[in-house]
């Protein structure tokens, strides 16, 4: 089946098997391998991407379901030459070690702060609790997300 959608601001059109999930489509067909697969049953959150503004597990969504949607992956968060304030805060707080869950943490946090730039620590923890990290113990990730809120407050929402 053919599916057309916007990936990180650019239009794509691709033929996929109906059974192919969005993560496999992004990774294997479109070669955007920043989105990671950690469980393929919707628990670990490493594959989280942003579909029409909402954080979505791309292993639980079929590729054909994003017809006409805007999809943002970790590759779409930053420009080529600079880290975003969220990414900079992750680096400063050592909020990543092996880096495998990081794409899901970043997309989840970006979707949250875009909607709720004043989210408090409890809210941040609650939203991030759907994404598993085995290295950091989460504390530095929460610190990084809280620090990045300032940058989202400044952004004018469309």
């Amino acid at each position, binding site marked *: 089946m053919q599916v057309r959608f916007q990936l990180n601001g650019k239009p794509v059109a691709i033929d996929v*098997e109906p*059974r*192919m999930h969005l993560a496999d489509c992004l*990774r*294997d067909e479109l070669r*955007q*391998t*920043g*989105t*990671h*697969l*950690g*469980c*393929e*049953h919707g*628990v*670990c959150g*490493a594959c989280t991407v942003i579909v029409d503004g909402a954080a979505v597990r791309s292993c639980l969504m079929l590729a054909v379901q994003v017809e006409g949607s805007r999809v943002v*992956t*970790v*590759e779409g*968060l*930053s420009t080529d030459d600079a*880290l975003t304030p969220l*990414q900079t805060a*992750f*680096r*400063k707080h*050592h909020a*990543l*070690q*092996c*880096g*495998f*869950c*990081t*794409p899901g943490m*970043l997309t989840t946090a970006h979707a949250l702060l875009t909607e709720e730039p004043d989210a408090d*620590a409890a809210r*941040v*923890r*609650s939203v*991030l*609790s*759907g*994404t*598993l*990290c*085995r*290295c*950091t*113990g*989460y*504390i*530095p*990730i*929460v610190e990084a997300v809280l620090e990045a809120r300032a940058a989202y407050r400044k952004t004018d929402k469309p």
Partner: protein
Amino acid sequence: MIGTNRYIGSPVERIEDFRFLRGRGEFVGDLRREGMLHAAILRSPIAHGRIRNLDAAAARAIPGVRTVITAAEIDVVPKIPLRLLPLPGTERFLQPVIAADRVRYVGEPIAVVLADSAALAEDGVGAIALDIEELRPVSDRRASGKNEILLFEEAGTNRAMTFTALSGDADTAFREAEYTRRERFSVQRHTALPMESRGVLAEWDAVQGRMTVLGAAKVPFFNRDTLAAMLGLALTNVELIENDVGGGFGARGEFYPEDFLIPFAARHVSRPVRWIEDRREHLTAMNHAREADCEVEIACRRDGTIIGLRGEIFVDLGAYIRTNGLIQPRTLAQFFSGPYRVPNVHITSTALLTNKTPSGTYRAPGRYEASFFCERLIELAAGDLGIDNAEMRLRNLIGAAEMPYKLPRLEPGGPAVDTECDSGDYGEALERCLAEFGWEEKRALQGRLIDGRYHGLAVACFIEGAGAGPKETARLELESDGSVAVYVGSAAVGQGLETVMSQIAADTLDIQLDQVRVLHGSTPYLNEGYGAFASRSTVLGGSAVFEAAKLLLEQIRAAAAARFGGSTEEIELVDGRARNISDGRSLSFAELASERLKVDTAFANNNKLTYTYGSAAAHVAVDPGTGHVELLDFLVVEDVGRIVNPLTLHGQAIGGVVQGLGGAFMENLVYDAAGQLLTGTLADYLIPTATDFPTIRAIALENHPSPSNPLGVKGAGEGPIIPVGGLMANAVASALASFGAMPNQLPLSPARVWLMGSVNKSSD
């Protein structure tokens, strides 16, 4: 002082982060090759049985399925050798890379399907008709010990090994003791669970007769040697390449069946083959860990001085001894007494085979379990003797004046596994921990009921024997732009190796951090290497880089002296330049690069481990109505000898503690009596999430450097996880002391804690 000390000791933000934060990491699942086939593996659905028939005709008939490989295609099926402790007798219990006629655990590989896509390969696995005659399974270590059902009939026993740790004369000490207490404890089976599952991409070059394997981790050089022997290839014709690795924690990177099967498949079909483990197979295929129980006793004087420990420990090892499978039972025995001065020890630790996934190392193997057992015993003894639990520990910690302090000797073992605590003041770390934690103020809360919850506090101490030998290798090369390429035999498993090695090299050479490029882990870089285990990379790899950098400086000095026509004494090396002191002429490192300066070296530690040590304290509130335990405060203080990067060190401490809390409260690989894993998804196997443990503090000290390496560093990846199980159990015991709670089994699940939190509920 090393060079400028511009980087060592500073919280240098990681070099690795740029690629990971932008989705540009390169993990094995991100790689593909032209003409690549995808592999999926048929695994035994039965815990114990004989394969009666395997018919792959229907699988082979699926369009897109290219071939199916079974033991028949492999002909002589290799067995996986032990990397550590290959003691006599162990050869009887090694794992074949594929099951030929007997299966011994759910998840054991039986066939490999190669297809044009991973989905088609999985279709192929589903189409194989498999007929297994079921045998009665050995479902736990008690059944194993009876030897009524044997996993290996020819061995005549399910006992894989018994280790004995010995000091002094335990029997006499116990006979003459003023106080003794005997208890039983157990730790459940759990697992490392890195967020990236395993993967292998193998490429066979039929013309050159060369095998290249991507996705290597942890110990690429040992695995290269193992694979070359299995495939009948020269070492020089096998390369293992390390890509980004999504967490290791001891389990990832050991030689598993797939590390043979996928390269074999690539050679079999003369095409690249990739296999990426899915999470369900991960939970039955990757090493399990920690399952152990014991009956142990402590002997003390009335004043609380510990005079003896003795007892028996049993480890449920699973179906085979894997590469490092004996480390846990070994360590349980030898490190049972931990940081405490115990003159008389007699502890046996027996590893028994069962029809479960084989077990191996997971961060602080054996130490986490031993600390739980020992700290519980000490806590109970302190209570019986009426001694404050912090004072009880302070009184028994090995003293600074007693260093180096020999730990119990091990049988079988010999001098290679003899070890001694190297340096430090254990009491200093405990007192710092108590002070920072506010023990004196908080202890008033012990056992108090506040707003419906019982409060409990506990303190525990630990040592982390790390930096296992024998050595590590490094090569430094001055490149044409004046930068330095650092090749090191250490492996990266997500711990920030590139950054830490860059700091050491840049400071020693007195150049900028971005003038150093670190290349690690892959076999083409160096002739030999030892990898990432036992928190050894900074200790051994870092020391090798340091020594190599000093040698490179001498070469640079000599080259500059030759250019200037003077002596080396006249050359000063500062900030990437060689300057002639007498006349002020200078050359940049780039201008000297045409000399092709390079240094190969190795750092050997003569098997002397480093001993990071510390103490941890915790404050919990227990809800007797739900069995929920909230961690209100947790502090760990450790002395690591010398801190290279406080940022990454702190990350190791906090991350390790949270993993330990997972083991203390939630993680549990549950099997039924038939040997079926009941917790085969991440919805069943629970690990900590962001909401579970928000308050953890860690303080690192560098008061007592290691005497066994030039940097003074001690391995520091596994310390803070060690005391967590015992600490949580003792905190819950204190909270629920009024109920006589005896939390002697992990995990402290809500159900168990709820049962302990009432006089009316029946005890577990």
